[in-house]
């Protein structure tokens, strides 16, 4: 298909769809097209961007119904003369394509995403290095590719239904550290994941892995995290002389008396 122009149908604040026509040039990305709009047609168009090379994670948006990074999406790859662009889902819209990504950052923080060592002094104030073999690095490296763009979160059907769900990105990051041979925080993180809003909430739609621009494969990390959780349950059971299974987990939120909102299967605004 030969393109000489392309129409962007952009969902803007207040629920309006506004169309902009942009002249196509070879190699044009969706981000290039948006920049063209802001610089030449409508300076009020809100969208985030920065690195232009798919590593800073700023420009996530819903392009033709699918969460993608605008900077590494070639206009020609969409094979359309008219492209639908909407903000990422499961996040509140602030202006046009700019969404509130803070809840996503908070979830990441909640799983203790840092190297935990029993000897803090050794970790923070020594001049030694841990010896790690390449095959050990391989166990977590892929999960460290996460650029925190939020595409997996926006694509996840469970996130859309359960705002208390830890989410694919945060579970992946918890697992990234659990799989790191240098880390000693395994036990504590499992408590965070073994809840009704944790790893068991995922129902394996696999949308996260499908949309991840960095091939992190969060769906795999969730499965691996489940294995770790089960291992720990078995260990606990043995420790207690095989008395009984660990009781169903209770989330922090419900302990404090906060009830998750009821499920909403409609398209109501969040």
């Amino acid at each position, binding site marked *: 298909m030969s393109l000489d122009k392309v129409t962007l149908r952009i969902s803007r604040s207040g629920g309006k769809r506004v169309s902009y026509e942009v002249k196509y040039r070879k190699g044009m990305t969706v981000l290039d097209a948006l920049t063209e709009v802001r610089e030449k047609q409508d300076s009020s168009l809100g969208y985030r961007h920065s690195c232009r090379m798919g590593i800073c994670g700023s420009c996530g948006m819903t392009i033709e119904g699918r969460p993608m990074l605008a900077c590494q999406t070639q206009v020609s790859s969409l094979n359309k003369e008219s492209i639908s662009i909407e903000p990422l889902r499961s996040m509140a819209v602030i202006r046009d394509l700019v969404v509130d990504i803070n809840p996503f950052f908070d979830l990441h923080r909640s799983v203790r995403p840092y190297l935990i060592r029993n000897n803090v002094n050794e970790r923070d104030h020594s*001049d030694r290095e841990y010896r790690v073999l390449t095959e050990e690095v391989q166990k977590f490296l892929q999960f460290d590719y996460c650029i925190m763009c939020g595409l997996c979160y926006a694509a996840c059907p469970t996130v859309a239904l359960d705002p208390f769900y830890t989410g694919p990105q945060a579970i992946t990051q918890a697992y990234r550290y659990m799989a790191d041979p240098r880390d000693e925080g395994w036990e504590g993180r499992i408590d965070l994941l073994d809840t009704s809003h944790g790893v068991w909430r995922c129902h394996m739609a696999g949308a996260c892995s499908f949309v991840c621009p960095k091939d992190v494969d969060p769906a795999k990390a969730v499965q691996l995290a489940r294995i770790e959780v089960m291992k720990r349950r078995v260990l606990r059971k043995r420790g207690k002389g095989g008395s009984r299974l660990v009781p169903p987990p209770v989330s922090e939120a419900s302990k404090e008396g906060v009830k998750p909102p009821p499920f909403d299967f409609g398209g109501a605004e969040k």
Partner: protein
Amino acid sequence: MVETIDHDVVIVGSGLAGMRAAVEILSRSGDSGKTLAVLSKLALMRSHSVAAEGGTAAVLYPEDGDSLELHAWDTIKGSDFLADQDSVWKFVSLCPGEIRQMERWGTPWSRREDGRIAQRPFGGHSFNRATYAQDKVGFFEMRSLYDKLQEFSNWTRYDETFVTALVIQDGVFRGFIGIKLRTGAIVYFRARAGIIATGGAGQLWKFTATSVSTTGDGIGLAYRAGLPIEDMEFMQFHPTGLIPTGILITEGARGEGGYLVNSKGERFMQKYASSKMELAPRDVVSRSMMKEINEGRGFTDEDSGLSYLQLDLRHLGKEKIDTKLPFIKELSMKFIGVDPAEEPIRIKPTAHYTMGGIRVDGNGRVLDGSGRFVKGLWSAGESACVSIHGANRLGANSTAECLVYGKIVGEDIAAYLDSEPNAPAPTDGSLISAEEARIFGDLFRREESSADVYSVKAKLRDVMDKSVYVFRDETGLSEATRQIRALKDEFKGVKVTDGGRVFNYNLQDVLEVGIMLELAEVVARGALDRRESRGGHARTDYPNRDDAGWLKHTLALRTADGPSFSYSPVTITMWKPVERKY
């Protein structure tokens, strides 16, 4: 009424230097109740440091034959002898500790077979000391620091806060004024100590490797506050920017054995640097490349009209590319549809690193026009000019500098907070209302818009690409200076056309372009005055280095008529300048 927010320390910029400093301060302040703020005009983790690819330099295993002396010598020779040698020594001695510190905070360094940390060859280094984690070094370091920050509680992140002014009273730092993009509100961040860690000014050029955000804001803040900025004419053009956008193909690609090839199929570096070949320092390689292109041995890209050369990785084989250079493969596949294992990549020198910046001493303390410490103010990373890199930075020394100086500055501030009185002095409120009036009065309410900010920006970047690129001369630089002045005049007619307050990126663009124009003038004027060729500053009309006349740092101070220049001596403690051969 402008809201005032109080913290003990305010860090502007959330890249490697800013976050490293934040971690250092937090881990030293413990439960003392001191609070820290990290401001970013993006969000944390979006800073341009994530795009650093190839390596972080450090002497990790002296038993293998490397030494601090050798790292220092390579850095100084690479700098074309403009680096301050005492600072270089301090820098190289702290690099190994930082690599190991990052290791203990989780950075997935690539490993040797015995589990020790792996290192690769890099341009201008005479030992394999570029420590790497595949080809995403800056990204992984950022991940580790960002994650490490999550462990602390006594800090606040102010994402998407654009700082517009630096407040200094009676020679003492008082705070920063910024706009919270989310609400459009102007906020005064009052603090006892501040760090400017906002990176470089690569966006002054159109063909650039750097993020859209690297507009030199922090350097501009200092310049506007009447502080000297140093060596701005020294810009590094990285040899391998991908056609047509300029995004970076790491030097690691050549470190792993890649060739640079001209249209005659020759590895032309043979002519210019027969022993180091493709791994000569970047200034040498970029000059050689432009010489090849100017003498007609380049290729021309039909779509963009850009001249280019080839980076050939085919002989490395698919497996090596996949394991050592996966990001290069991804960029090449996604942006130009080329598999580097099958076809050479089209590249040319791209604006990459600002060697100059805010003038600081060996502890990262910001100095005023007479060389006195502006009490309470530090700068670290690319926005600062220590100067370690002199006229040309070696590859893998910038991420190293960010980590080392983040730590040095963090330590220095922790000590400063303990030794200085607690209460911040009252601030002269007129400064803040003046800033508010400038932004929301002037820029918004201007009657008619006679100029378009984006067209001014585009014209500026064309001028820089044309006349202030790898090779420069009197005619081009005079013309560039004249055009930049004209653009400054044109810019006076620019109005913010987006009337909204929330996420008004148009306002941010206007504020950034205002700073870019001033910095571009400093770069072009400084380059015009410096009648010699040294490192990143190559003059065709003065092709040699002139140590008798120009072995000195350039200092620019702002006046109503643009920059006024003075010069200061280079600190030479170990090695006298000699001819550079590679």
